[in-house]
């Protein structure tokens, strides 16, 4: 395959004025979302999805992707300056980043976070560019049984990587499957759990569900903690790290890139877990592990690189298999379908403009973000001073408008409010929403693949095991599901801290 001409074609699409503007807008929104605590990338993308309905498919995806990786840049800013992570993937950055800021080294901390993000982001796009088409070509041989097994594996890995109780993560996945069943059955047109509400016949919309679970519930949680923000006073200087700081950071950035990229591909791992793992690795390989938590620049460089690299990796299953690996990808999958693009192994070949345009936009977007984050840092710091009491009515308003304009049905507004309350209670009782969203999206696909497989095999469930690829994947799935019974692994899992959003 001639990558050179394909990527050139991609750039020719991005450099169209509209796309250039939208790429910038996406990155800007992403940074904004990253900087503002209490509004994560998942909610933001769900919020802006309806506004992209009028765009061309490639423009819409370029914008939404920009929000995602842009948030990873912005998230570090609040972690370092205010000790409040802007989103889940920057939680770990607060440990050393804020300490550095207190010691008067806010500049280098912000600088290395931005440069590390840039390097890791770009490296992971290179990986995405080569790996996604390759994987897609391999996946062309996949039939419904393989897809069924693959989705089972995906759900299992997701649950395996979930923080906290594995039973509860599985419960959330089951709940997601149930919510995904609501509506008229595709094959028989029998109504399932519609409670006699005609609007529920088409099923629960992804937008009200995500905005409720991630947007509204987040606001409800935030209004009860009166966030006392102490923004670092004084000017931030020396944004360019010095030679020694570069020396200390080079390896963490490279390790973080590789680690983040690989973890990003796995379902459910995503940026947050990548940043935690990177921090743990850096602490272990460091010659002076005691410095971690006291303002070690490696503790900023590694995780901030890893979370950006993870965003690149997480696009791979979506673009090559049509299977989302986290809740943001689930929304992007929804966006693709709304725009009439069929996700799956044919996507790269049938929509080269879309895939290569989006890849090219990510190269460009990373450069834009570097510019947005370093010279304009003062602007973002000012923004942090807006009190939450003024911010939260606006976030709620945007959710309301977003839920309404997505379908022009008022029922979706009520659904969103309901899921908002549900998300709030789930969080209070320590359940995670991410497995729910993913199972919700995968559920109907899973059911479809299962039924089609059974039609092929004329009713014999053995088909899932006798086809070699499908069988192998299922065996791996079962082994993974059984592994927590081994106490050693159970102990290791508990090292993963609780993440708020993924």
């Amino acid at each position: 395959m001639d990558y050179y001409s394909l990527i050139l074609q991609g750039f020719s699409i991005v450099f169209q004025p509209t796309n250039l503007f939208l790429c910038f807008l996406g990155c800007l929104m992403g940074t904004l979302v990253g900087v503002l605590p209490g509004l994560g990338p998942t909610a933001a993308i769900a919020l802006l999805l309806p506004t992209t309905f009028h765009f061309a498919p490639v423009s819409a995806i370029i914008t939404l992707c920009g929000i995602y990786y842009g948030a990873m840049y912005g998230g570090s800013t609040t972690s370092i300056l205010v000790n409040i992570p802007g989103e889940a993937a920057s939680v770990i950055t607060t440990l050393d980043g804020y300490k550095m800021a207190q010691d008067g080294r806010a500049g280098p901390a912000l600088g290395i976070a931005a440069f590390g993000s840039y390097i890791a982001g770009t490296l992971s796009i290179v990986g995405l560019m080569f790996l996604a088409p390759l994987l897609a070509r391999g996946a062309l041989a996949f039939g419904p049984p393989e897809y069924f097994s693959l989705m089972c594996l995906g759900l299992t890995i997701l649950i395996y990587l979930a923080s906290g109780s594995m039973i509860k993560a599985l419960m959330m996945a089951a709940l997601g499957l149930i919510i995904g069943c609501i509506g008229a059955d595709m094959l028989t047109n029998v109504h399932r759990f519609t409670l006699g509400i005609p609007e529920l016949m088409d099923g629960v919309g992804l937008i009200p569900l995500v905005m409720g679970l991630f947007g509204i519930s987040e606001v409800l949680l935030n209004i009860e903690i009166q966030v006392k923000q102490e923004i670092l006073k004084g000017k931030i200087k020396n944004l360019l790290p010095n030679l020694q700081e570069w020396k200390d950071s080079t390896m963490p950035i490279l390790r973080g890139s590789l680690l983040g990229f690989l973890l990003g591909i796995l379902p459910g791992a995503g940026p947050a877990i990548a940043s935690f793992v990177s921090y743990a690795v850096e602490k272990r390989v460091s010659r002076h592990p005691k410095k971690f938590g006291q303002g070690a620049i490696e503790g900023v460089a590694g995780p901030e690189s890893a979370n950006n690299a993870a965003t690149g990796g997480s696009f791979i299953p979506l673009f090559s298999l049509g299977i989302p690996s986290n809740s943001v990808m689930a929304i992007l999958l929804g966006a693709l379908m709304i725009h009439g693009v069929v996700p799956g192994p044919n996507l790269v070949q049938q929509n080269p403009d879309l895939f290569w345009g989006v890849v090219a936009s990510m190269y460009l977007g990373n450069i834009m973000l570097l510019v947005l984050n370093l010279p304009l840092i003062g602007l973002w710091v000012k923004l942090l001073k807006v009190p939450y009491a003024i911010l939260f009515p606006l976030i709620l308003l945007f959710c309301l408008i977003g839920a309404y304009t997505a379908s022009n049905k008022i029922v979706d507004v009520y659904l969103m409010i309901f899921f908002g309350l549900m998300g709030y209670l789930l969080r209070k009782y320590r359940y995670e929403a991410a497995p729910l969203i993913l199972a919700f999206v995968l559920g109907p696909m899973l059911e479809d693949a299962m039924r089609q497989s059974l039609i092929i095999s004329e009713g014999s469930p053995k088909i899932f095991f006798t086809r070699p690829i499908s069988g192998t994947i299922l065996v791996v799935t079962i082994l993974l599901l059984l592994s927590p019974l081994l106490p050693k692994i159970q102990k290791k899992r508990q090292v993963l801290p609780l993440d708020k959003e993924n």
Partner: protein
Amino acid sequence: MGRYDWRKPDYKSGILFLALGLAVCYFSWKIGLGSPAKPGPGFMPFLAGLLLAALSFALVVQVLLSWTVPTWKTNIQWKNILAVLATMIAYGLLLEKIGFVLVTLGFVILLMKVIEPQSWKRAVLGGMISSMASYLLFETFLKSQLPRSFLGFF
């Protein structure tokens, strides 16, 4: 915390999800399970419901046996939560009757006054700016169809 602490959050939520899972199983069974060879519309939700019920049961058993199950205070502040949710439901009820701009104005002012009260000047100003700006953004720029007021405009 005692060995048999019935107030543990995991216990409460576990019982609730157990009931939900069983209910889903029952209704799926009524819709029609079909056979494994030819699954009916109730097959998938039945499996999901069964999974939920089984896991919830495991969770509850875990709490009863107190296998190092953590406990914590849920600290739900119903007053604030209900105030915000009620305001949002009111927004939904009134939106198509009164029109976008007026409802939005009221919504923002109310929320700014209720949770962490701001001055009237700030609240009214915030309400006016946000309703106008969002109208311009969504109706004029993005061409969404927002409900208009009885006056025929806005």
